[in-house]
């Protein structure tokens, strides 16, 4: 009896074989759930909540977050897998598959009496070798638009259907290229993702400018302004009555009236400054003038601005203020004292679009915008969410590719190559660890196998063909999912991120090793805090 039982009779304990069995079972269970997702031919999953809310997804990351995982081991694996997504933006499904397969392969040897520690050593050796191979097969290239398109396509094809993926591919690559500045890291925050429940998802597009999800709040303001100056500011243009109302400051009605007027005048002066600037720069020409304020603008000020032909938007989001000056140029002003022409940005076209109660303001035709917007469209909520998730992953994939400066062939080609190299390497290893290396090599092959299986081909047959082709041609060969035949991944232009694969090898080995070495599971009134 475990000693913990003596102290806490309620404790539940699983030891040695039983503990391992619990872990392996959980890992394989999770693997079974995500298995069908992998690759462009994987199944889409529709999750319907208890209340009837729909979520459509194929992304392992989204699935793991949505599932209420109660099993502690499964939840541990899920956390590692979603962490993978947080770091690299992709690879969740592969992660779960490989961890499950590593444990399954290890189980074969352990059931024959091999100690888990020895397998773990083999895993470690295999991982080091695998990383070496990965270094060798990676393809360093200059990241031109063409190759980025291929990378984005590979990523997006696995998330959404092909014609939508093609639309998104272009949008995603162009947006990253637009905000990319040589010598600076890529800041994906400069790409705003805005959703609009309108038309269909293939109308999703890149706006070289900004889309704000609010509009002017005055009926007389123009809905469309061309060739406009943009003033971004963070100045309150609203008269706050609270101070005057509190009753301590006035004794008579006239006095109150006077105070109110003085207070009002203060705001009016600010509005007048903006109007003066407008008159100065526009000077009776047909140029437009748009004010975008982070603080509020009250109806009186709006009215005055509208009379002078100024379009004013209030309460812009904080994060959009930076984007605004990057997109249109100009400087965001915090005080109207130092207002000058230099503060103004410029946009070729500003117009408003109304959808039900929601208004959108498009600021387009900016000269050399350094912040752009991906406008996601779709007829319903779940399509919007799905497209948005896909866009995020696409953006990450491109960012990764640019930052890595290299890519690796996809379609399971890398896994086949690594497995092949490991089999050769195995002979140099002495003792039981050799079996660990063998297990590792076999486990990696789960990726091409599942890819083939999800496309409806015989998995063993396809794998053998691919392996034979690989040995024969000495090229990186993957599975062609349209024919089930081997193909050279490079020629098919299927590219994966190098950093994703690297991260995969690291995290899968670490977590699988840890789980293998667990020989006792205790459950004794633990706080659920860590979940």
């Amino acid at each position, binding site marked *: 009896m475990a000693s913990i039982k003596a102290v806490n009779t309620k404790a539940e304990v699983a030891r040695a074989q039983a503990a391992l069995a619990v872990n392996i079972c959980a890992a394989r269970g999770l693997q079974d759930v995500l298995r069908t997702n992998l690759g462009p031919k994987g199944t*889409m999953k529709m999750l319907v909540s*208890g209340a*009837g809310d729909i979520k459509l997804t194929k992304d392992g990351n989204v699935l793991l977050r949505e599932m209420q995982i109660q099993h502690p081991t499964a*939840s541990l694996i899920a956390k590692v897998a979603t962490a993978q997504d947080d770091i690299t933006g992709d690879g969740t499904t592969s992660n779960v598959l490989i961890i499950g397969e590593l444990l399954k392969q290890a189980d074969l040897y352990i059931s024959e009496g091999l100690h888990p520690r020895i397998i773990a050593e083999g895993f470690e050796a295999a991982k080091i070798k695998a990383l070496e191979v990965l270094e060798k097969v990676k393809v360093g290239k200059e990241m031109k638009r063409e190759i980025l398109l291929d990378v984005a396509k590979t990523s997006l094809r696995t998330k959404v259907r092909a014609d939508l993926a093609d639309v998104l591919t272009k949008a995603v690559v162009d947006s990253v290229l637009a905000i990319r500045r040589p010598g600076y890291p890529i800041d994906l925050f400069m790409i705003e993702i805005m959703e609009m429940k309108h038309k269909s998802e293939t109308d999703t597009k890149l706006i070289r400018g900004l889309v704000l999800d609010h509009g002017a709040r005055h009926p007389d303001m123009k809905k469309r302004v061309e060739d406009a100056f943009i003033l971004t500011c963070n100045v309150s243009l609203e008269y706050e009555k609270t101070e005057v109302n509190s009753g301590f400051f006035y004794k008579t009605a006239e006095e109150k009236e006077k105070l109110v007027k003085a207070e009002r005048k203060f705001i009016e002066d600010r509005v007048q400054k903006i109007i003066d600037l407008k008159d100065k720069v526009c000077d009776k020409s047909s140029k437009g003038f748009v004010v975008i304020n982070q603080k509020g603008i*009250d109806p*009186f000020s709006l009215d005055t601005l509208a009379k002078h032909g100024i379009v004013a938007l209030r309460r812009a989001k904080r*994060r959009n203020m930076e984007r605004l000056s990057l997109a249109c140029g100009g400087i965001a002003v915090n005080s109207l004292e130092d207002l000058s022409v230099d503060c103004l940005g410029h946009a070729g076209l500003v117009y408003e679009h109304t959808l*039900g109660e929601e208004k959108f303001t498009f600021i387009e035709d900016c000269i050399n915008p350094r912040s752009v917007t991906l406008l996601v469209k779709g007829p319903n909520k779940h399509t919007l969410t799905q497209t948005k998730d896909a866009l995020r992953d696409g953006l990450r994939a491109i960012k990764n590719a640019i930052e890595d400066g290299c890519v690796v062939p996809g379609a399971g080609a890398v896994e086949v190559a690594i497995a092949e190299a490991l089999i050769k390497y195995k002979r140099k290893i002495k003792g039981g660890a050799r079996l660990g290396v063998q297990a590792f090599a076999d486990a990696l092959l789960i990726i091409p196998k599942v890819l083939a299986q999800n496309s409806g081909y015989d998995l063993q047959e396809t794998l053998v063909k691919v392996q034979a082709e690989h040995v024969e041609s000495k090229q990186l060969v993957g599975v062609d999912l349209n024919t089930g035949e081997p193909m050279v991944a490079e020629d098919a232009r299927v590219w994966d991120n190098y950093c994703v694969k690297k991260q995969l090898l690291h995290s899968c080995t670490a977590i699988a090793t840890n789980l293998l070495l667990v020989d006792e599971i205790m459950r004794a009134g633990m*706080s659920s805090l860590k*979940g």
Partner: protein
Amino acid sequence: MAGGAREVLTLQLGHFAGFVGAHWWNQQDAALDRSGDAKEPPGELCPDVLFRTGRTLHGQETYTPRLILMDLKGSLSSLREEGGPYRDRQLDAAIAWQGKLTTHKEELDPKNPYLQDLLSAEGVLSSDGVWRVKSIPKGKGPPPVTAAKPVIPLEGGVRVWSDFLRVHLHPRSICMIHKYNHEGEAGRLEAFGQGESVLKEPGYLEMLEDRLHFYVEECDYLQGFQILCDLHDGFSGVGAKAAELLQDEYSGRGIMTWGLLPAPYNLGEPQKNIYRLLNTTFGLVHLAAHSSLVCPLSLGGSLGLRPERPVSFPHLRYDATLPFHCSAILATALDTLTAPYRLHCAPVSMAHLADMLSCAGKKVVTAGASIPFPLGPGQSLPDTLMQFGGATPWTPLSACGDPCGTRCFAQSVVLRGVDRACHTSQLPPGTPLPSPLHACTTGEDVLAQYLELQEPRALSSSHLLRSPCSVAPPYPHLFSSCSQQAVDSIPVFGALCSSSSLHRTLAGLARELTKLDLRRWASFMDAGVELDDVQELLQDLHSLAQCYQEGDGLTD
């Protein structure tokens, strides 16, 4: 005064806050003028303060609460995130995938009989949903539009707040925190630090900012925010962070925070109790720092570790273990206490109300209410008030102990639901006046005079409203005095006051916190709170308690 309502945005953080909120919105909904008759004089309370008018994509006009609520994964039950009139009409129109599709359906939560009744009363509007499990009960002919006997939700049938919510919510109202589970053992939101870190994540922060922006941008005269926040679990951290965000972003607006605690605690679970104490203290201090006014609301006897008997009301029978009951009472109090800044004419703005009550840093206030206000038949207001004698007329609702013998620094009092005829004494002229109250000529004077008599040194503001509090179903039937009759509305007498009893309460919290060996509760600290933070917290708590010390020369 410029036209237009002075808008308030409500934030509901946590599940018990959801309960209180649901009752409250139901009460607001019941008070709405449904007749659409323009000639009728508008009520005293302006619903536009809390509600917004909108329009769906299909052109349908809507009137929904100006509300953002946060709750955990799995807490909505049968309520849909995107529900009501805003739902998508063509659901299966486009599924962006040509390959295989597998569907994983959670078991659909059955709508309880009350909700089904509600749906059927609304007719076709809601019954065309593609995903609805059960449509209107069949075989009963056309649905009774005005049901003769409305189904009252059974106490046992209410598990979550959405089980009895009558109003439709705007799709931007519901924010789900998917990181933590509502039920089950794993993945709970238990500690202050966890809550804080939720709003430090860019994803959730952006979600909250987007929703705030949506509601605030359309307000012409936003007066402030009211935050209903659970104090006993990790939501106290969410609330603290949210209040900080609001203070940063919208300076100059009032932020009214109501810290909610469900009543009964078990002594048997020491860990839960310690966590509750830590969360409450952290929440209270941080919320006080970032909002204009904080008021703890609970039916429990104390905020500390040792539970005390829940408070009792002379005319109510309730089950303190049911959040459905507790939240109903708190919602009624809330409906009364918030009246000053929701008035149609001459409202006291939220910031002003807070200023009045919180002079010299006394940002924590206590609440009390007399539910229902015991106005007997044939009695006038002065009679009833004199009945109380010197005792406090209201039951304390802030778990700060008996207000007896403590000093009140400032108070805001609202009495509602008293008919104008009863406002003043109806004694025939010539009879000797039983009290100075009987001499007053208006109800307002009676009330003011009464407060003057009770707390001569306090700064008081009072409001007298004719409209009562609505307690129509699904409000639970709690009234012991009028047992059988269905009660639609009740008079309520409520007060917010900053009293010296808070000194005892806050100092008590600090004492209990000092006694705790915090290293034993490492899991609380793991979630992002450090020992230094606790020291700082203690200091803040002491200085907050200091503000309520009686007899410091400054306030006299």
